[in-house]
């Protein structure tokens, strides 16, 4: 049969960011897909050679606008482990509260984009309206809506007062109720099921074989979550990763919806368990220059991220590397696209939650 090549991207209505897939079609079926990246490479990793390690945290946050907090946190955790810095308890709790809040906003953003991709614009706006409330919480507590710049090596820059934490939890509860109504639409609307159910199925074995991470793996039933390692105080929380077994696009939507509820529940537990009081220490003064190398793993909204930092005893780091979840999920995406209909390609690409800024840095 004659083959047709259709370039998908870099500009495409469903793609928030530029990536190219050369889709090779036989009739309406995709038989192969060749990805090309490199449209928004900014050379952030090379910047460590000319920005001091104390200030680099603010640059690392700008890798991506959605998981910005987690990027800053991962960088600081890596440097803290190299320099053996003990971070004050309250700062550690505040960090994971912000981290879980950013997971909620990322999933709400993605659910909106997903709704837009399968043509449900009304739902897209509802999801983003809810996300605004989370961004307000961020602006109130960190000073920025998207880029928070509160992480510093040794702790955090700002405190959230106890009364404010209670108000945030109340606001999240309210948001949870509004979210349940929207989630019902995702779960029961016939058009959504028609577009997503049974599309792009990734079995558990395949997910393991292509090393999928994050919600992508969990939607296929792989129990993979960096939070399970118990680092960053997650061992003190009751936590069980959200698993679905269907492995199709709908399962990936459901995993993310359930993770929004789970994150709200986790924030409840965190606020209960964290040390209370005014004027608790938030930061440990960091002295000297880092020397050594380390790996840090974190569970970002999109999956596991790995940071590698190598320091050589000067104020400039020798090497900084971030392996982002989208990069790990691209092989899974290519696998899913092969054999599907051309009309399903946008949905499949969107359900891996691609973040090209992260991937290219």
């Amino acid at each position: 049969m004659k083959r047709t090549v259709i370039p998908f991207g870099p500009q495409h209505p469903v793609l928030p960011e530029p990536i190219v897939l050369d889709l090779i079609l036989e009739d309406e079926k995709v038989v192969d897909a060749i990805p090309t990246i490199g449209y928004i490479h900014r050379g952030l990793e090379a910047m460590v050679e000319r920005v001091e390690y104390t200030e680099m945290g603010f640059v690392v946050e700008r890798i991506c606008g959605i998981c910005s907090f987690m990027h800053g946190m991962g960088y600081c955790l890596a440097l803290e482990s190299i320099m053996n810095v003990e971070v004050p308890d309250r700062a550690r709790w505040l960090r994971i509260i912000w981290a879980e809040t950013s997971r909620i906003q990322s999933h709400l953003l993605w659910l909106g984009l997903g709704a837009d991709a399968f043509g449900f614009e009304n739902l897209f706006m509802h999801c983003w309206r809810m996300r605004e409330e989370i961004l307000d919480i961020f602006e109130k507590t960190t000073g920025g809506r998207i880029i928070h710049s509160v992480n510093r090596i040794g702790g955090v820059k700002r405190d959230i007062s106890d009364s404010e934490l209670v108000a945030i939890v109340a606001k999240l509860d309210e948001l949870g109720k509004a979210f349940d109504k929207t989630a019902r639409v995702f779960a029961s609307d016939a058009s959504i099921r028609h577009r997503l159910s049974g599309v792009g199925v990734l079995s558990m074995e395949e997910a393991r074989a292509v090393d999928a991470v994050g919600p992508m793996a969990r939607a296929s039933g792989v129990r993979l979550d960096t939070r399970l390692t118990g680092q960053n105080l997650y061992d003190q929380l009751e936590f069980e990763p959200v698993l679905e077994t269907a492995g199709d696009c709908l399962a990936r939507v459901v995993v993310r919806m359930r993770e929004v509820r789970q994150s709200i529940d986790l924030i409840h537990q965190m606020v209960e368990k964290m040390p209370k009081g005014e004027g608790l220490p938030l930061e440990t003064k960091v002295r000297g220059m880092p020397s050594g190398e380390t790996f840090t793993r974190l569970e970002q909204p999109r999956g596991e991220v790995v940071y590698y930092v190598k320091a050589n005893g000067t104020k400039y780091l020798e090497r900084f590397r971030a392996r982002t979840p989208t990069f790990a999920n691209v092989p899974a995406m290519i696998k899913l696209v092969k054999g599907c209909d051309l009309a399903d390609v946008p949905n499949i690409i969107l359900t891996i939650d691609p973040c090209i800024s992260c991937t290219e840095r």
Partner: protein
Amino acid sequence: MANPFRLPMAPRTIRNLLSRPATRRYPTEIRPRFDGARGTIKFDVETCVYCMICARRCPAAAITCSRDERYWAIEHLTCIGCNVCVEVCNKNSLSMSTDSKSVHVRAEVGPEGQRPGHEEWHGVAPQPVVAKA
């Protein structure tokens, strides 16, 4: 298979018809910023001693400062608003302003002059803010 005649979004849509919009009419209705929110850098020429710490610590190298010439400048389009300079300033010469009109966008001046509305909502064309004592 879900019932195609079920419309789970319908109650929400009807309620939206009767409630006020979630968005604001931006230039006339400006969203208030929270206390402590970050914005653009404001510089106080009276108190600055030109110690150059802000220029050295700026991750984006947006600040140019010279002690000999008594010169301080910031490139607003390069500034990433991380607040580092405000924190390190010993004399509190730097502060964050949340003024929402101070977005600097490069002005495009055509043969007939500037585009309508440009001056009003986007400030002036981005000149580095220069202070000389």
